[in-house]
């Protein structure tokens, strides 16, 4: 890949951060996963051949990094389900949209991952299913259920 790496960060940094936040909540874990994603990309950058869809490639890397963090969390005493109230710090978000990330963080893990990789990351249902060890149909349903919950919450 001979594209200046800086351009990849500027073009795809926001999408990768959305994916990491949807999986891990609006705290430092998401920022760590973002860093690990771009560091991994930077390490392999010159050897990386031309990638037809760079954003999807980065989202897949981010997906693996975020799942690594989730698994590490699962090995710790604090269950993932309790994170929004106990561990996840509110994002310092100048636009005042931190609430949506906190809301996403309260969704069941399957729904968060489906929203992260498919809805925010733009991966196809089949790719998302392969990434999280599920079926395309289950991913489609999880994404729809998660988005419905968020909509209900924001309409109310």
């Amino acid at each position: 890949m001979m594209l200046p790496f800086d351009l990849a960060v500027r073009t795809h940094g926001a999408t990768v951060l959305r994916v990491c936040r949807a999986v891990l909540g609006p705290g430092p874990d998401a920022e760590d996963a973002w860093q690990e994603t771009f560091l991994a990309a930077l390490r392999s950058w010159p050897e990386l051949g031309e990638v037809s869809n760079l954003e999807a490639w980065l989202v897949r890397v981010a997906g693996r990094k975020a799942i690594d963090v989730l698994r590490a969390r699962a090995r710790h005493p604090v269950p993932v389900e309790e994170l929004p109230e106990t561990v996840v710090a509110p994002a310092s978000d100048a636009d005042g949209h931190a609430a949506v990330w906190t809301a996403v963080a309260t969704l069941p893990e399957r729904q968060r991952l489906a929203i992260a990789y498919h809805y925010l990351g733009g991966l196809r249902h089949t790719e998302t299913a392969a990434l999280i060890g599920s079926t395309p149909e289950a991913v489609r349903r999880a994404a729809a259920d998660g988005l419905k919950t968020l909509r209900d919450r924001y309409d109310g």
Partner: protein
Amino acid sequence: MTTPPPAGPGSVPAFSVSEAELAGLAGKLAHRAEDESLLEVAYRIVDSPVGRLLLAATERGLVRVAFEREGFDGVLSGLAARLGPRILHAPWRLDAAAAELGEYFAGRRRQFGVPLDFALSHGFRLAVQQRLPDIGYGRTMSYRQVAELLDRPGAVRAVGTACATNPLPVVVPCHRVLRSDGSLGGYLGGLEAKSTLLELEDRAVAA
């Protein structure tokens, strides 16, 4: 490409991330890249009386000064192709160069001391560019005189090409090379920029 649809009635609110957050993350990434020796080219953008300038450096030194009219994204792509694609915005790596340029534009500096990396130049062009700092501050030479200085009196056009392809304008003073009739000749940053630099040096010398 994958931007979520805008939030309308009954839809999910925007999953927004702010520019400042991304800038902070990118800065931290550049520091970590530097720690792991993964930063091939660092760049920053500075304001100047001749418009915004892009400054780029390798580990060896300042490698490129570019004018905004050259198109910064195109310049970065060129650097990626010539020097390596691990390019990141790492302004601290160009603190010394930015400070010296600031002093130069304020009329308080007549020579640059930061290390230079001529990796983008070869052969006769390199020879010309390395001699250009010999033309003192506030002085000028013709393309012909520079050719003679290099014992290549027939290479007037090649000197012109070497000036036109100078990767380090302002710092390597190709703006001090004019046509034999005293007219400006060409300049990568535009003739207005060339006159601005010459007038700046004239004023500082006269002061």
